[in-house]
């Protein structure tokens, strides 16, 4: 790809004209939930979520999924917040909001696949963080959810070019970022960094969006980037990837992210990767079910 064409792609991504905006309710909700738990007003959270009917309906579906720890049904937002807690509701509200960013109508590649991967990765990140004693599992969830925001940008802004990259990745069974580098001259990490900065996401989320395929390049928050990098890879190797098999062999103990994360989480040294992988099987069914349900509601 010529430098000139690559530059044009970058400019289109930076303009982000075709990119949907974050639902208006999300920013005040997130800002409100950043406060200490003991001063939060339950009714205010309920009111904020309920402002957006579509978001509220999706949140309820999600709140009723075993993936978020609920087994007895909740039928309104108030009960959902009481049953799940403020933090879990924040995870759910953000997840539903990210879904609304996906392009509508005919797209070059099925966006559901990417959303399944993002939601799956978020859940794996949180579970992985809890298992190895990572200090902030809630942040890990958010980072997992948003790590591929660059893919969403490419789907919206440069859909035809992205299609070529995706077809190459799928036909050769290679990682998507490698195919993007070949055909686009940039990867979803590059575009993810552009979007994350444009949206004024926090530094750690910018680092994750921009460096999750090469955690060593992160200037800061390397532990979080490494955690997402390993979780992302595990999802892709376990059938929660981009809808095709990457024909490769992975030893997690030799992945670049492993050594970085080990510095922060010594429990990783004796981590049972096999069991964690088997546990993912249960996630997959639920994630497929939930994403299809949410996508129907959002149409």
């Amino acid at each position: 790809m010529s430098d000139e064409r690559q530059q044009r792609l970058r400019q289109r991504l930076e303009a982000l004209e075709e990119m949907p905006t974050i639902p208006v309710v999300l920013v005040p909700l997130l800002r409100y939930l950043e406060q200490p738990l003991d001063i939060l007003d339950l009714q205010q959270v309920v009111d904020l979520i309920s402002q957006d009917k579509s978001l509220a309906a999706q949140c309820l579906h999600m709140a009723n999924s075993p993936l978020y720890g609920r087994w007895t049904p909740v039928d309104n937002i108030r009960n959902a917040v009481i049953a799940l807690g403020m933090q879990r509701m924040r995870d759910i509200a953000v997840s539903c909001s990210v879904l609304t960013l996906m392009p509508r109508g005919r797209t070059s590649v099925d966006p559901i696949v990417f959303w399944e991967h993002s939601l799956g990765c978020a859940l794996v990140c949180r579970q992985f963080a809890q298992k190895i004693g990572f200090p902030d599992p809630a942040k890990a969830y958010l980072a997992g959810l948003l790590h591929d925001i660059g893919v969403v940008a490419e789907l919206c802004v440069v859909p035809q070019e992205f299609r070529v990259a995706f077809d190459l990745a799928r036909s050769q069974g290679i990682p998507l970022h490698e195919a993007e580098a070949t055909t686009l001259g940039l990867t979803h990490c590059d575009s993810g960094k552009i979007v994350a900065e444009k949206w004024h996401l926090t530094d750690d989320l910018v680092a994750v969006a921009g460096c999750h395929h090469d955690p060593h390049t992160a200037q800061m928050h390397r532990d979080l980037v490494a955690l997402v990098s390993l979780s992302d890879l595990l999802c892709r190797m376990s059938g929660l990837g981009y809808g095709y098999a990457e024909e490769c062999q992975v030893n997690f103990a030799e992945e670049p992210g492993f050594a970085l994360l080990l510095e922060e989480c010594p429990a990783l040294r004796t981590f049972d990767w096999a069991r964690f992988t088997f546990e993912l099987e249960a996630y997959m069914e639920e994630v497929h079910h939930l994403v299809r349900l949410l996508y129907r509601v959002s149409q």
Partner: protein
Amino acid sequence: MTTTAVSQRTPEAPRRPPSPQLVQIRDLVYQVAGIFQPDNKLRHLEDRCQKRMQALGVATLREYYDCLTVRPIRQAELVSLLNEITIGETFFFRNQPQLDALRNVVLTRIVEARKKMSLRHLRIWSAGCSTGEEPYTLSIMLMEELARRLQGWTFEIVATDLNEHSVAHAKAGVYGNYSTRNLTPQITQKYFSPVGENLQVNTQVKTHVSITRVNFLDDARMVFLKGFDVIMCCNVLIYFDVQSKRRVIQHFYNNLLAHGYLFLGHSESLYGVNDDFRLVHLPSATAYVKSEERLVTR
């Protein structure tokens, strides 16, 4: 108060959380036998436990957990439960993700590593082959690959089992509907012949497979099984105690060529049993590798 009702309910069976006793049994089975039942399979595990509970006249899972841990019958009962968990798992092309990983990744790596060598022969051991579905599946898959990845190669499959009846069944190579339910019409037509209502594996498939009785705890036999690229050992080690399992795994390690692969059954793990093998992830499958360096010599 502002409330929003669920706008769309899906018709599905009511879900319920797994009972703590069931999770305890799941974890015990994983710790002792190395086979894991993920949350979506807990219903299956519960059914299996209920069946055993009926046989023992036990009323609750808590009581059944005691049968598996503190009562004198615990060892025999664990074997009975494992039998229930793995029952009916022998059929052709059983674990497709594992077979795809073997074909698409492992074979490709072996062929690539041996490119510059004259010896182009692949040796696979189906260890605990039961009634023969696994080794014949491998034989069929590799015969298909002879025109693709394995052009110019030869291969052999050594199949062993402890049970004499299973060995005899495997040698006969005649199978009913249950075993053959995953076969495509093309594979059936190409590699099987009808015998009454059953299907018999053709001679061309059988010629690549040698079947014998081997006890994994017979050290004298085990040391002579050498030079394998791949060992498949599915749902066999789960029946061994930790000491015996370590001994068998050490044999497998020695039986493999440098960089050879050990495949276990679905959701089976060597965690806490062996540190020499390295766990690797393949697409929707896992395997254990003797070492990570490049394949060099046989």
